[in-house]
């Protein structure tokens, strides 16, 4: 039904009487309209690196960006606590017992029964809690990714074995496991508490990474790599893992938030980080012991924990949207 005559020749025949094309450089610039220029400009902006796009999309989330700033400020406070704090962590001042928050003497978070300044204590608490949480997240992510990758990639018996082991740990309720482990490993030090937390949380990371590897393993680019002779290690490290970085990073932020909350709970119950080490959870515990009338002792450390966790969640949300815009923008 189609006639061989309907091809380019048809159009070229008719071009005899047409004016010279502007695109071929014949026409002066003045003839090109504003709209035309804008369109051209729009077309040319297309080429950009993938990471630039991710950055762009992330910065569109005002809440996530604000959270990054706030979190950085908090982290700086924690980092420079020894320099910034107005008093010593255990500095007792019997003149200033149980003062409610006041600008007098910079006791904006109040003082406890021994006159210790709570702003100072919270600052040091931030310092400890943050680095423990980050350590936990890094450890858990490292271990979890390694195990999840192996399980997901090799499948079969190895997968079965590793996942049954993970199941074992997940069968028991989280906090109970942590408490048990703390009692018997003897916690009290931030480092040990961090280890215990990482010991529980890697299982969640492993689950996720395993799922990612299971689905990516079937994709064509893996087949192609195998066909060109790539070994397993190479395929895992250079082909599949880079594609998982996004979801893993997002999940890692979640782990940081969970780690902070869990560590606070552990310390509060007396099983986690204990004095003389500072921790926000144990500060709340101290505060509780001193009675509920001195409400500021309990309130402020908790508010700080909440603020940190909130910022991390917002950042995680922003990262998730930035890394995978194909997901429906079901914000939050």
């Amino acid at each position: 039904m189609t006639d061989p005559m309907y091809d380019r020749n048809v159009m070229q025949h008719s071009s005899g009487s047409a004016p010279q094309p502007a695109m071929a450089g014949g026409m002066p610039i003045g003839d090109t309209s504003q709209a035309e220029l804008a369109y051209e400009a729009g077309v040319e902006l297309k080429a950009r690196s993938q990471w630039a796009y991710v950055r762009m999309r992330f910065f569109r989330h005002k809440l996530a960006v604000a959270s990054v700033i706030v979190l950085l400020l908090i982290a700086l406070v924690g980092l420079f606590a020894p320099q910034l704090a107005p008093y010593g962590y255990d500095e007792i001042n019997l003149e200033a017992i149980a003062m409610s928050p006041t600008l007098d003497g910079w006791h904006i978070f109040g003082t406890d029964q021994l006159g210790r300044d709570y702003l100072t204590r919270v600052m040091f608490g931030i310092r400890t809690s943050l680095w423990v949480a980050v350590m936990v997240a890094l450890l858990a992510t490292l271990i979890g990714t390694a195990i999840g990758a192996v399980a997901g990639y090799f499948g079969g018996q190895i997968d079965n074995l590793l996942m049954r082991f993970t199941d074992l740990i997940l069968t028991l309720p989280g906090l109970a496991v942590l408490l048990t482990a703390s009692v018997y490993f003897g916690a009290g030090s931030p480092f040990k508490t961090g280890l215990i937390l990482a010991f529980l949380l890697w299982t969640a990371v492993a689950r996720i990474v395993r799922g990612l590897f299971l689905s990516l393993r079937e994709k064509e680019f893996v087949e192609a790599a195998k066909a060109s002779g790539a070994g397993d290690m190479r395929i895992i490290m250079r082909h599949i893992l880079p594609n998982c970085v996004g979801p893993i990073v997002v999940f890692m932020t979640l782990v940081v938030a969970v780690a902070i909350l869990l560590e606070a709970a552990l310390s509060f119950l007396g099983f986690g980080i204990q004095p003389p080490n500072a921790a926000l959870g144990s500060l709340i515990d101290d505060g509780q012991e001193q009675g509920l009338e001195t409400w500021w002792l309990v309130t402020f450390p908790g508010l700080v924990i909440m603020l940190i966790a909130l910022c991390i969640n917002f950042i995680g949300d922003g990262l998730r949207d930035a890394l995978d815009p194909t997901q429906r923008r079901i914000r939050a």
Partner: protein
Amino acid sequence: MPDPILQLKNLTVEFDTEDGVVHAVTDVSWELAPGEILGIVGESGSGKSVSMMSILGLIPTPPGRIAGEALFKGENLITMPKKRLREIRGGPVAMIFQDPMTSLNPVLTIGNQISEAIKVHNRGISDDDADKRTVELLELVGVPFAERRVRQYPHEFSGGMRQRAMIAMSIANNPSILIADEPTTALDVTIQAQIVEVLKAAQQETHAATILITHDLGLVAELADRVVVMYAGRVVELSDVFAMFDKPGHPYTVGLMNSLAKLDAEQDLLEPIPGQPPSLVTLPPGCAFHPRCQLSQGRAICRTEVPPLRPFAAGVGGHVSACHFAEELTAGRQHAEAAGPVA
């Protein structure tokens, strides 16, 4: 044309998004006669689906904005109260969607979903009668063992069967207009042929006017009476099917036809249309096709003025095209004809 059953007048649909305003459909006007089959052809993003969904109220109107008129037997669907529109949707005007797997509710039986369509437009019909009619419809569209299959779930049907069930659902209430949105795209080629037969049977049974949305020219050639070609949200050509294939009046249409593999010619390479479809947020000024058009050759008017949809010299009764230089297409053809067949 006898009184048209559907008239679109300057239909315009825009969406507010965070990247800007998307001009999905711009100034679309055409008419549909009772019982005729109209094909709407275009690439993805040409606005063909959106235009039909918008007149049925299936486009969410916070981000979307609809202007213009869509007269169904004289009533304007766009400004109609919601209740009245619901009476028309699924009844006098029915729609079939592209992917039957995702378009059917996975947790309800096929029978449940079809009889639901019947009951909504026939208040007071008994459950038994609705069930009987459901089985009849499934038999009509060629689903074997209809009585048993009525109780099955969509995932227990094959792709072709699911589409048949969708068609059954749409003709359940004897529609006057049947809109089929890419009914064969998601199916295997062999099944496609079967579904085409089912569509033909459905049309014969109901004598409905049919709007066939597709990017498949072959389908249009086989089924349609008239054709609307859309590009970047606008109608660029409108004619009866024979005239269009015989003497296409728009470079885009020519490009579409050329990009198909031809059975009766020797070809080394396929000839796609160069370039990319435009972004619907920043449309090119003037004629939206000009950056990819070989007829245009950079002429200023193509870059500055949107070509009106108009009859052109060689166009026979009703054949219109939106191209400033439509005549040159046909002029060139006459040259080529005079020069003899291409070697």
